């Protein structure tokens, strides 16, 4: 598929999105056998060519799963990536990783930046190939995610920058060049993930500044995902989203994708307190629990969010990536999510008086 065709396909698919569209955050269930094969690659037991073929097959299956579940905007499941950090860091020119052996594929490397990163107008990370492959597998709109500069910087142990903020900005510029190439290749929905930000709430301003460097002059529908971490299916931090505001109001993104299902919906009150007039990606699926939500629970969660965000600004998604869930659980959760969204969509399409469901209790700051 040519880049022009890809762009055209993407745009035509976008036009057909329903109200309360469903999507994923990015990663998809990584089967145990795939983890073993990925680890085998790092132990030099299989070749890069074999691993690439394995990834192709796994991504096709992941997309098929999402399509069959009825997800409106799908992803490649990030199945090529060893983890959220190294897949990008290892490709950024100037980032040095001395020891590239891993006992387990998901481990983090020790990365350093011995010299200030060179500024480049061209992409170097190879994400375009990933996107083009994905585009060739589905007619549905695609969301393409990558980890943001702030989180990437937190895994760089030592750098030539005396000021960490300068390192974050340099990483942002590298990602900006990549984003430009992705859009040129036909990507229309890009998402920046900042899984480490919640651990450094005082740095929200810097993170948002860097996100705006990534999105600068890139004509895409941008989303920003901030969660409390999903490393090994555990939260890395606990807290509330207060720290994001008001800084996030300055972010040049159209959608804020947040974790709610595990933590509760109390932080929805922030959207009453602050003037966020853009879209909210509402986490309705707890990705840290294998217990499958019912569609009724999903619908109730959506209804609750509708008290503070109008339906045309609400997107329905899991709390975070599904990578740690067994495939059968991930499939069941996505189906429940789609069914829950469909139920609320139907309610919204009915005349007001026909709505039988009682509304959820009024949302308060404490709820």
């Amino acid at each position, binding site marked *: 598929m040519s880049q022009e065709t890809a762009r055209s396909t993407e745009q035509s698919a976008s036009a057909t999105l329903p109200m309360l569209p469903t999507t994923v955050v990015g990663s998809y269930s990584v089967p*145990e056998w795939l983890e073993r094969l990925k680890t085998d690659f790092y132990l030099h037991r299989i070749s890069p060519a074999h691993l690439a073929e394995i990834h192709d097959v796994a991504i096709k299956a992941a997309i098929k799963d999402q399509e069959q579940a009825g997800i409106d905007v799908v992803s490649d499941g990030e199945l090529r990536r060893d983890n959220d950090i190294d897949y990008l860091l290892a490709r950024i020119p100037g980032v040095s990783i001395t020891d590239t052996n891993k006992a*387990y594929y998901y481990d983090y490397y020790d990365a350093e930046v011995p010299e200030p990163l060179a500024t480049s107008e061209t992409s170097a990370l190879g994400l375009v190939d990933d996107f083009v492959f994905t585009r060739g597998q589905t007619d549905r709109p695609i969301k393409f995610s990558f980890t943001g500069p702030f989180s990437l910087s937190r895994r760089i142990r030592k750098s030539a920058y005396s000021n960490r903020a300068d390192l974050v900005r340099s990483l942002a510029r590298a990602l900006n060049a990549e984003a430009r190439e992705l859009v040129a290749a036909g990507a229309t929905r890009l998402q920046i993930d900042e899984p480490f930000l919640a651990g450094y709430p005082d740095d929200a301003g810097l993170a948002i500044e860097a996100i705006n460097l990534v999105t600068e002059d890139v004509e895409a529908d941008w989303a920003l995902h901030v969660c409390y971490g999903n*490393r*090994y*299916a*555990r939260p*890395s*931090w*606990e807290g509330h989203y207060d720290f994001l505001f008001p800084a996030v109001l300055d972010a040049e993104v159209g959608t804020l994708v947040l974790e709610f299902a595990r933590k509760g919906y109390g932080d929805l009150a922030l959207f009453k307190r602050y003037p966020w007039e853009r879209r909210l990606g509402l986490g309705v699926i707890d990705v840290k629990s294998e217990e499958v939500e019912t569609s009724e629970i999903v619908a109730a969660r959506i209804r609750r969010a509708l008290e503070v965000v109008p339906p045309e600004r609400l997107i329905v998604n899991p709390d975070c990536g599904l990578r740690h869930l067994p495939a059968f659980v991930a499939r069941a959760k996505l189906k429940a999510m789609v069914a829950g969204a469909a139920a609320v969509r139907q309610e919204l399409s009915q005349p007001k008086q026909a709505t039988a469901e009682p509304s959820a209790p009024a949302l308060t700051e404490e709820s």
Partner: protein
Amino acid sequence: MLVEVRPSKKLRGARALNLTACLAPILDALCEDSLDLSRLRLVCDWVQYKNNFRDVIDVRPILSPAKQNGRAAEPDDDKLEIAIDLRRCADADLADVVRDVLARRTEPEGLQRVYLEDWSRGTTSRIWEFNSLYWRFLGVWEKATGRLYEQALPGGESDARNIAGVHELIKEMFLVWDDLAAHNALPDELYVIELGVGNGNQAKTWLDEFAKLDAEHGSEYYRRLHYMMCDYSEHVLSSARENVADHAAHVSSFALDATTPMTALGFLRYKVFLVYISNVYDNLPTEDVAQIGGHTYHAEIRAYLPKAGAARIAERFGVESHKLVGTIDKLLSLGPELLVDALSANFGEVARAAEFWMAVWDAVKLEERYVPMTGLDLYEIAPGVNGEMLRPMLERHGDVRMQVSNGAIASFVDTLPLLHPYGRLQCHDIFVTDPHQYRTGFLGPGKYDGSIVNWVNGPLLQHIGRRKGFDVGYAPFAHRTGTNIVTLTAQVRD
């Protein structure tokens, strides 16, 4: 024939074992037999537990993988392992013993042994019912032996009560809490859990010292502290509660199985700053796996009483021989107190029932055989943990036999979700920390009073912990020398 001598350190020094003297009569006797020696493994251990489940020489069939796959196997397809306890070799006429055990292979089953169960992988063996009985009726056992459990421990007391260790741990927690408080991220409630609380001495020491150090620290953490005492036995919890009565407002107690803490404590998911465990893992059910000649096997076991020993017990307690197994069944299901009511003619008082219990326990042995595993991924080590976790150890260390520590792993993986992102699990126990130890030492099972002890598979716990996002480290217990106790610490990594 392969001969594996594990206690290699015993072969040198002033009190060196005369290996030639041990092996020569065994090899002579083996050569007299028609056994296919090319299919024979001879493994020599030094079983350091005075009370154990082994004979001086045991025979363990190695079943053929072909049989497991449903294909017809040749009658002589099975290999054989002969296990020798070198510690007891000087006390036996080894050639005779070998002739005897080889002759027994062709005898009808049960001629020389009274079996208490059918073959099992280990965790479901009846020996764990004895272990459970011990903890349920610890008071009866202690009364019968005239010795408290802690006195049976090396050093005469649990390492859990070491003040220096307690201080170090509490001060490290204060540092974490101070930092979280500075970032407005310290929860209102500060949870600490102890699994396997015993008599409550550790809890009392810990709480006393915590209150004292907190008063010095001046942060009022004690006011926010909730100490959750957990144990298998309500009876034990009851006496532990009395022991910590001074801290009653800060202590809750839960009767739970250490292998499934989340069943009772699920509401504390991601909230607990410290889970403290001492001498629990080594006493939880385990299975053994072995890698032999490129195949992976379950080491299946079957508990039995030697026929002569069983007859002596039956006679001593006036039990008809054919009713002995049924009487043991009653002991295990009812306990010694109710056994007196059920069989008053044999056991007039609890002390007599306790004597019967101890006599049977002393006589119980284990027969073993190796059964091929059909696939690591099909083997459930513990809920949510399959045998693939064993692969790195099995692939890296060649022919090796080891405990899987199923109970310890079940407990470990069901405890980790409780931990706050800045929480830690600390566990004092006897851990294997280097897989090489499986080649050089005997690591269980042994009998420890009325309970079972197995060294815990530390590398496997470490590997599983890593796959769940935790750094798992081992260090010799820092606050007492000359102890086998190792401290495991698990904390979130990255």
